[in-house]
């Protein structure tokens, strides 16, 4: 942007050569340390042999080399530099974390061994078992998608009905008050017994967990719409349908998204429990399977994948919200 201030980061090269990205240099050092720890000390492998220790050391060394290169070149490529600049401290911390993790597990066994695994074991898991992990992710996603879509859709309609129609509210409100706060997992034994398959039972449970917060927040959203908004539309010739679809729904949308967010969190919990207890697929099932075989590496690997999946889905929801609610001031960034 500014070309007139000679003392900023983007000062003319001639004044500041060599232009070093200092935290990049530190990151290179941290990753080199991690590579060194991995390579130099022997694995304490009384219980397990790790086949990937050597490769992992090389990989870390390569990352260190890449940071070294970046440290001296990133500033020359402003678009690249803008991207990596803010992340510098994290790159350093990550390298140090890997070095420490390596040391306390594989190298010096400071943490009880079969329960805490070194990073190279996760790599082994991903290498050997990626097919089954991938299938588990797909199974979980598919189950979640069905249950969440069903719950969000029905919850939204119920909330709209509660907020709009006193007659619907007369019947739905007491039922919701009684049944809604019950954790969906409490239905688990009954659901597996009543539904023809564990998949349909879990879909129902996830829908239940999602539907309640979505319904309550849609309802409160519709109920809190400024009544003047309806007056304006009515004097301009709007009919009932327009008032619902073009006034109540968009006005309630910020609340609806809070409900969708809470529902997504609740649906994760039910998903994992349902998969651990009844469904014979998915990441929850993978976790309990790994536990059964004392395959701790697989557990960490699956947990990491699950964290990425859940975080990714929430990011997706926030992206959608940012698009639909761009008219709002000060929306929270995820």
């Amino acid at each position: 942007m500014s070309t007139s201030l000679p003392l900023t980061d983007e000062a003319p090269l001639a004044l500041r050569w060599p232009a070093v990205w200092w935290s990049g240099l530190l990151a290179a050092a941290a990753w080199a340390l991690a590579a060194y720890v991995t390579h130099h000390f022997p694995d304490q492998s009384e219980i397990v042999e790790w086949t990937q220790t050597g490769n992992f050391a090389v990989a870390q060394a390569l990352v260190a080399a890449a940071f070294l290169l970046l440290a001296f070149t990133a500033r020359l490529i402003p678009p690249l530099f803008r991207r990596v600049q803010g992340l510098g401290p994290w790159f350093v911390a990550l390298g140090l974390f890997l070095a420490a993790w390596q040391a306390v597990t594989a190298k010096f066994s400071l943490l009880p061994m079969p329960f805490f695994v070194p990073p190279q074991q996760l790599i082994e898991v991903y290498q050997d078992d990626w097919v089954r992990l991938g299938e588990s992710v797909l199974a979980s996603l598919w189950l979640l998608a069905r249950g969440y879509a069903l719950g969000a859709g029905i919850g939204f309609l119920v909330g709209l009905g509660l907020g709009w129609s006193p007659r619907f509210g007369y019947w739905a409100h007491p039922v919701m008050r009684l049944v809604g706060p019950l954790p969906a997992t409490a239905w688990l034994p009954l659901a597996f017994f009543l539904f023809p398959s564990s998949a349909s039972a879990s879909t129902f449970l996830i829908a239940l967990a999602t539907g309640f917060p979505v319904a309550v927040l849609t309802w409160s959203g519709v109920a809190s719409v400024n009544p003047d908004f309806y007056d304006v539309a009515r004097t301009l010739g709007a009919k009932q349908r327009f008032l619902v679809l073009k006034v109540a729904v968009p006005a309630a949308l910020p609340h609806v998204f809070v409900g969708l967010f809470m529902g997504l969190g609740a649906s994760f919990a039910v998903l994992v429990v349902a998969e651990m207890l009844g469904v014979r697929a998915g990441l929850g099932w993978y976790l309990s399977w790994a536990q059964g075989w004392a395959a701790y590496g697989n557990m960490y690997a699956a947990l990491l994948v699950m964290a990425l999946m859940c975080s990714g889905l929430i990011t997706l929801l926030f992206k959608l919200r940012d698009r639909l609610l761009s008219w709002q001031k000060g929306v929270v960034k995820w």
Partner: protein
Amino acid sequence: MVSAATLERPASALPAGSALDLRHVSHAYQLKGEPLPVLDDVSLTAAPGEFVALLGPSGCGKSTLLRLVAGLEPPARGELFVDGAPVTGPDPSRVVVFQDPTLYPWRTVWRNAALGLEARGLLKSQRGRVDAALTLVGLDGFASAYPHQLSGGMAQRAALARALVNEPRLLILDEPLGKLDSLTRIAMQGELVRLWQRQNFTTLLVTHDVEEALLLATRVVVFSPRPARIRAEVPVDLPYPRHRDDPRLVELRREVLALLGVGDATG
């Protein structure tokens, strides 16, 4: 370039303004279980094309009267007729500009102004009217802005544009210029008179500003404190454009202020 002329109705249309007839209208609200009388036996008529200003102390019931005329609420007692037909509900020929702009925050200025056409399914064929109305109120550069990006006065003008798009036969204005700075206000007063003269709709204007009422209206109705009764009707027999230092207008101003009970304060 869209001109404001697009907003003018074709020569062959119905008589432009509605006739208004309020007969012994009384109204009350429930406040903590007690009835709160707001309007007390108000009888008022307006001929087609007339510009009637309503003046009264704050909280006396002016906005309530406008709500009844708009058809947003039925009166507790009495009857309201527009063009001889009883008012049973809102109708797009009677458009209200509310005291608050109440723009929809999720719609751009353009889409707010388009609200009436959209609600009646006319938007596709009459998009030009929206542009014309925005040009008229001086917001054509802000068509794609959101309400939170507008100043108070701009929001008021957007609300005015939203009303004008619908070619009202009765324009109901509840302090529409209340939030404008004095310069914009003077300009908008002129615009309002020109628009009214061109389209000849009947206008009902609530204002706190005695001078504004006298500058714009053909007749000024003065209300008592709540519950509102009509205290006096003052015809303003002055040609347009009017000037605030016109001796006749100054005289009328003193008269109306006296009716409002503040005659002495301004000497």
